[in-house]
């Protein structure tokens, strides 16, 4: 468990807003070990989403390096990037399923990108749907599903190509607590079963506490604290972490 599977080094990213440059990531460093669920928590606007989107280069970082299993993601050209992206699954807050396709076609979509034969792709898609417990919905359209079911399809789609990494960008933030729990259970189960490495971005501390092994606290473009979930919950060193845990405890006591 000591292998640094994902390494992010001195990552910077600025956006240009009305000719002014707004620095969203101000030098981010962290490592994630193979097979762990790593949580990043922060208040809105802290830059967590930008950070996770840099990992598969939905956002282009300005400087810094991102290594996944030794491969430098930031150095890839367009074709190499597309190949690499097939090994990085991603799930979203708004699920982002394709409404024009059935559940099964949604899961088939990434499989077809790899040039897999139709029969193999269909077999794999059905396997994935049974893994997330939605076999009986395979011919339904996303419009018919509940939020939790949609996110399960999102997970099946993200994992169809057996990625090594799953990025979760606020994947449970649009779900009710009960559904959140079942989706997190699914992520945990898959993490164990497939040895998947997960980076989970959220503003909900209880999500991190329930699902993650290690965590980082982000504020204003910086990671202010990194450690095991237990450490940070028991002895938060940064003000932001203390603040978060304070809010968390307040909610639980009332």
């Amino acid at each position: 468990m000591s292998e640094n599977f994902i390494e992010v080094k001195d990552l910077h990213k600025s956006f240009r807003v009305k000719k002014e440059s707004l620095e969203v990531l101000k030098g981010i460093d962290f490592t994630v070990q193979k097979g762990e669920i790593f949580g990043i928590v922060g208040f809105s606007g802290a830059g967590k989403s930008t950070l996770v989107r840099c990992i598969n280069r939905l956002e282009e970082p300005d400087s810094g390096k991102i290594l996944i299993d030794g491969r430098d993601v930031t150095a890839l050209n367009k074709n190499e990037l597309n190949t690499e992206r097939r090994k990085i699954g991603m799930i979203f807050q708004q699920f982002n399923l394709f409404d024009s396709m059935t559940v099964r076609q949604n899961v088939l979509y990434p499989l077809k990108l790899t040039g897999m034969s139709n029969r193999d792709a269909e077999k794999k898609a059905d396997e994935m749907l049974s893994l997330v417990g939605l076999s009986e919905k395979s011919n339904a359209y996303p419009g018919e599903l509940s939020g939790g079911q949609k996110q399960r399809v999102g997970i099946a789609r993200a994992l169809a190509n057996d990625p090594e990494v799953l990025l979760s960008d606020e994947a449970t933030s649009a779900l009710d607590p009960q559904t959140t729990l079942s989706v997190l259970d699914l992520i945990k189960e898959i993490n164990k079963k497939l040895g998947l490495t997960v980076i989970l971005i959220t503003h909900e501390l209880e999500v991190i506490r329930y699902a993650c092994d290690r965590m980082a606290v982000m504020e204003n473009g910086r990671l202010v604290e990194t450690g095991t979930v237990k450490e940070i919950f028991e002895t938060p060193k940064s003000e932001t972490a203390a603040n978060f845990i304070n809010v968390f405890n307040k909610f639980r006591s009332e």
Partner: protein
Amino acid sequence: MSLYKYSFWDVLLHSFSAEVWAQVVPAIGETLYMVIVSSVFVLIFGIILGLVLVVTADDGLTPCSPIHNVLGVIINCFRSLPQVIIIIVMLPVARALIGKSYGSNACILSLIASCVPFFARLVESSLLELDKGKIEAAKAMGSGNARILFRIMVPESLPSLIRAFTNAVIIVISMTALAGSFGAGGIGYIAVTYGYTRYNHDLLFATIVVLIVMVQLIQMLGNGISYMILRKRHLI
């Protein structure tokens, strides 16, 4: 029958007579020919130009502002001209291209010149309404741009594209009637020549009925197809 000699009701009743429709029916054929041929061109070129606009935009799949801006300006130029002026401008173009500046085929050229830019803008706005998250999800899975465009963006916006095309066809129909007064033939020609110049108001009424029915049918068809797709996807 003129309204100057007969009562409104007599003229209206006579507008449904066999005598009137013997003249109107061939004109419907001409109008349908112009509308169908023009609509096919409008569909093809409008979609292509609309896609180019979206793809080359700053936040598009392959940003290319020179193409985007030049195309935008050209489209705006055509869009600034009222249909009458486009018809007049296209007369010499038609003469150069097909040898005569009157008749259905000459009219089709001006219909295309006017309606393609209009439909291209409608296609652009339909595609821009698409949730960016879906495009990102496709990118995150490692899709190439062509696949994102044709497997995601176009199918996902299909109901909206169909509505846009319905509007474009209705504009084509109305412009066909206008072009009729410039020698294009069809319903518009009947309305202007008989209804206006010769006070045959029964013929005028008949053309109005034809135009209203045509537009209603197109609108119902467009709405119907779009509704069926949304229904199938359980989005309404």
